[in-house]
């Protein structure tokens, strides 16, 4: 039971990221009818917002520390972060330590701006073009964005640690009455899960309780009516795109400590998020969230060797080719599920009829 729970927990952080990206993707083609292959890039830009802020807060100059000497006996030079000068020796380091959570505030305007430029500058010209063109142009954009990031941040992953206070692990099992050390879970992942929950709840509340959200939901239910409802529909589209970009960006910011940001993380997550969207059912927001978590958890189960061992043993597959196939299945389980779902249940888990089906 505790092992089971641990696998579920392990799937939650990735699942949260899938869910957040898929949510944004669904918002975009639910309302704007655009298939956005650059959505993974938005996630990546979010992660690099965290990198950037931690670099800004870490910017420093050299000073001579008279209290220390180096090994030759000369006064030692130490790096003095600017924030220490501005905010004092207590608040300064604290700011640096909390760079990633602070990047949330930093990333929201950045992502809204990026989203605004993307939608106004590019996407809006593609509303009337075929889906293939939309895929192609956003694919080109994804390449461009990731290469820009590589140009400025290099090709290597950049470690971006969580605040000191969250680097430990919690003994989750004890809370639930299991034995000590049965379920050890990194604190930051817990934070990520809670954060994702808040963002998702925020998006749903926004759609549920604001007039703007009502228009959007009406539009997603029937794209024809959007035109009738809004006087300034263009502006609503832009805002919608900005929100979707911000959601992807936030997912990226907080993901930075879990997986050191690199320039191609967007492409890696993109394929999976599309799979998630399809499994959830194109155009269904709850479907996207549900499928995100389900697939994250599924992946975590199948990357656990004792679980796979259990399957092999109980199905008497030991020694057969299938045994080695199952050993490597964590790599492909999500795709397998997606293919099966697409073929047997084209509308996905919660999709409506006929969305984007020719």
């Amino acid at each position: 039971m505790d092992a089971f729970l641990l696998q579920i927990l392990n799937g939650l952080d990735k699942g949260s990221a899938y869910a957040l990206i898929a949510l944004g993707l669904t918002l975009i083609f639910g309302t704007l009818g655009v298939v956005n292959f650059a959505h993974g890039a938005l996630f990546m830009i979010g992660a690099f917002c965290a990198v950037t802020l931690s670099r800004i807060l870490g910017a420093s100059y050299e000073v001579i520390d008279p209290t220390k000497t180096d090994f030759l006996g000369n006064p030692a030079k130490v790096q003095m972060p600017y924030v220490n000068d501005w905010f004092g020796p207590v608040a300064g380091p604290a700011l640096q330590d909390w760079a990633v959570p602070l990047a949330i505030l930093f990333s929201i305007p950045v992502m809204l701006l990026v989203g605004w430029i993307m939608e106004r500058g590019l996407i809006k010209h593609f509303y009337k073009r075929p889906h293939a063109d939309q895929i192609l142009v956003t694919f080109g954009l994804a390449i461009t964005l990731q290469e820009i990031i590589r140009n400025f941040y290099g090709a290597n992953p950049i470690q971006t640690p969580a605040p000191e206070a969250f680097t430990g692990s919690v003994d989750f099992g004890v809370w639930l009455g299991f034995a000590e050390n049965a379920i050890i879970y990194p604190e930051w992942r817990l934070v990520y899960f809670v954060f994702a929950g808040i963002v998702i709840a925020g998006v749903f509340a926004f759609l549920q309780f604001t007039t703007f959200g009502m228009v959007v939901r009406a539009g997603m239910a029937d794209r024809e009516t959007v035109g009738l409802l809004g006087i300034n529909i263009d502006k609503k589209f832009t805002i919608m795109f900005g929100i979707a970009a911000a959601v992807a960006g936030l997912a990226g910011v907080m993901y930075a400590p879990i997986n050191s940001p690199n320039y191609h993380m967007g492409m890696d997550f993109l394929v999976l998020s599309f799979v998630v969207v399809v499994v959830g059912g194109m155009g269904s927001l709850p479907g996207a969230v549900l499928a995100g978590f389900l697939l994250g958890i599924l992946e975590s189960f199948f990357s656990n060797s004792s679980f796979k061992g259990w399957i092999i043993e109980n199905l008497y597959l030991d020694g057969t080719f299938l045994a080695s196939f199952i050993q490597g299945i964590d790599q492909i389980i999500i795709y397998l599920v997606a293919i099966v779902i697409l073929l047997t249940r084209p509308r996905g888990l919660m999709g409506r009829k006929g969305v984007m089906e020719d």
Partner: protein
Amino acid sequence: MFGLSSKHDRTILIVATLFMLLAPVIFNLFPENSALAFFNGGYPDLMQRFAIFAILATGFNILFGLTGYLSFGHAAFLGVGSYSAVWMFKLLGYNVLPAILLSIVVAGLFSVVIGYISLRRSGIYFSILTLAFAEMSYRLAYSVLTPLTNGETGLQVYNSDPQVLAGANSPTSPHLFGIEMSSAFDINLGPWQFTFPVGYYLCAILMLISFYIAIRIFRSPFGLMLRAIKSNQTRMTYTGLNPKPYTLAAFVISGMYAGLAGGLLASMDPLTGAERMQWTASGEVVIMTVLGGAGTLLGPILGAGVIKYLENVFSKMNETLLETWFAFLPDSLQHAVVWVLSKFTGEGWHLTLGLIFMVVIIFLPGGLVEGGQRIGKRFSRRKSSGNDDDNAAASEPAE
């Protein structure tokens, strides 16, 4: 001639043939030691890649250009072709003929399976299915299938391999009945230097054959049906035609083209790894085809040529080189210019590629061929558009 009924088709086939045969000269226009020699592209390696990717893009175009089904999984067939070819080298010996044949057959079979399943959906769902299959193949190649693919090390030929058909004095690199792929003969004409590589000519000839087959397909009733699929599947079914087998046939043919390309890649360099199958590699084929002009005959070849050439030139430009080029500028300006340009060259080539691709889709959805036609029309307004022979080569921008 060649069963091509229209003069237009004969012309483009002849032009393509001349171009391919003389490519070593055409690409080395600049004398060896001149300042512009930098822009030469007549290296065996580059020209081979051009011919091979032209095959790949031509095949991809039969699917995407004609039927409109956008596959993001063609790199998987390329990879499968390469693996098959290397296995032939390991088992039979370095003769490229069996290797290439097997790579076409295996890629064909593989595409029957993937195509049969993926084509049960259309539109964006089809794209995502092919994407999922390609990612799956890529990951399987790294994990479960390591006995076949040799995992991360990549598949290559070892001394201990059986090579049952290899004689005592067979060449120890890929060859066609004794003629080694890596051999070449050089001609020096004054300051010009031309290299005529064997490997390239094999690729070029196979490319011309592939191109010829593509022309025949484009002009045949089969090709017409493929275009009908793109245009209106409802009308097609109510006209007594079953779109499914037509699309599947196009998918398999284009998969076989990709297999041939993969086999040739391995024949030029008998080593292959799974990264060839990644979905971003499929994206590159898409870019080539669309850049040149999807649905046109010459487009994919043009696209492959432009991208492979620019890739070569841009990747070669490093900062030192840029500095010498802009040495005539005042210092600060020189640094600024070099700084900006360096972002787009060398490692930054992919950035340039992404930008070019976006610009083409935004402003020229019909690709370079359409661009050429627009310019051509501007110069000869008086010619009306009534000439039907040329009509099929012209691609209307996607609706």
